[in-house]
């Protein structure tokens, strides 16, 4: 009897496996399924609460490990997003720097890309540390720009890092020019307004109007100070000089409180 059942099974397997999808056995199977389906549906509805209950218990048992797994995945995803955003930001900054280099023809000035690695908090802070030093060709008094314009000069150089004094520091002393009236002055911090600059020593301050773009003059302000290439943006005139004070308020082009990718001009011709 066992042998007969085995032979029948083998015949069924051979016929079913060798036959095409529309064979007689397939028709029998389809017909059987048609008959079974309603019964199966009813049985499934009856048994649904039971297997739902057991599956719920299984879910609860696994909930803790699944939560931990999801937390790990979330942390990894967040890290990846942060990396991608940093990369995107850096590449956007790099592109902007490339554009400014191209526009102002700064290639001969030896631009070296760097990243701000330390920026002390606080409104009165006027220096930052960058990750390029003498090993990258950086010298003291080299001008530093970011994609928006001038940010400062190199004050101290180490092998692999440098400290940059920002243009809102009194010692920076950048000679500037009004791009419209061509009036020349010196940029310095505005007392009492850490987020703003002021343009001083202008021979005809009334010629400088609100909204004028202030750029580097390309001339040395003091003996031994840095020599910025001409026409690099510094900021926009926010308030014109009054007859009493003669102070011109300039809003800096670069956001000095949030610096990231910068460029040190290491080969500016010096007098």
């Amino acid at each position: 009897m066992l042998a007969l059942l085995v032979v029948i099974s083998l015949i069924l397997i051979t016929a079913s496996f060798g036959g095409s999808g529309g064979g007689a056995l397939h028709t029998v199977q389809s017909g059987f399924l048609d008959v079974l389906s309603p019964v199966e549906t009813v049985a499934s509805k009856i048994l649904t609460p039971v297997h739902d209950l057991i599956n719920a218990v299984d879910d609860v048992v696994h909930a803790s490990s699944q939560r931990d797994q999801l937390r790990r995945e979330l942390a990894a995803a967040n890290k990846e997003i942060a990396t991608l955003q940093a990369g995107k930001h850096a590449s956007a900054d790099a592109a902007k720097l490339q554009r400014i280099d191209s526009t102002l023809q700064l290639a001969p000035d030896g631009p070296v890309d760097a990243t701000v690695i330390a920026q002390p908090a606080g409104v009165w802070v006027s220096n930052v540390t960058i990750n390029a030093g003498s090993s990258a060709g950086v010298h003291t008094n080299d001008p530093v720009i970011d994609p928006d314009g001038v940010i400062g000069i190199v004050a101290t150089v180490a092998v692999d890092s440098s400290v940059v004094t920002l243009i809102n520091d009194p010692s920076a002393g950048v000679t500037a020019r009004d791009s419209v009236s061509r009036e020349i002055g010196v940029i310095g911090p505005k007392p009492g307004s850490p987020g703003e600059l002021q343009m001083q020593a202008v021979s005809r301050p009334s010629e400088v109007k609100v909204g004028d773009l202030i750029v580097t003059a390309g001339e040395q302000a003091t003996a031994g100070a840095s020599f910025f290439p001409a026409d690099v943006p510094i900021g926009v005139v926010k308030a014109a000089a009054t007859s009493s004070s003669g102070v011109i308020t300039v809003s800096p082009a670069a956001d000095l409180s949030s610096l990231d990718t910068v460029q040190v001009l290491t080969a500016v011709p010096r007098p």
Partner: protein
Amino acid sequence: MSDRKNVALRLGVLAFVSVLVQIAGVAQIHVFGVGFDLAPLVVAAAGFLTGALSGALFGFGVGLFLDLAYVQTLGVFALVFCLVGYTAGRVRELRAPEAPFTPLALGAAATAVASCGYAVLEVILGVTSPVSLQLVRDILVGIALNSLIAVPVYSIVRRWLIPALPEDPRRRRRRAYTTGGLSPLSRP
């Protein structure tokens, strides 16, 4: 109704109900990503209780039912469960194990034979999925899970079939002791 017809009827009902419960309910319960499989447990229990020939026939019927219900290659489950039912019956006929863990061992062995037999047949029939560590793990977890429900399933099958079966020798022996008539201790 004769005993044989009664056994056949009960086996038929058992096959229908167990396959239906398997398809509609048990197959959807997953623990550690693996589902329970009622069929090998029921076939092994039925074969163990009714004998090799009945077990083979019952296994063949349950397997064919599953083949039809799952719309897969006909005869695969039929062959596997036919052998499971026959082997369970032969174990009872040759060894007559009476240890308390017999249903558990029977369930685990039946699940292992069914899982491996089905996998071997699928490979022979040309299923291209490679034998992976995941497959081995699933088979082992399946055996462990089925072992957990082997005892209650055996108990239910036994309770269903026992009224139609010839009197169990163990039951007869136990009854003999409790009635006091045949116990050696009660003899004068």
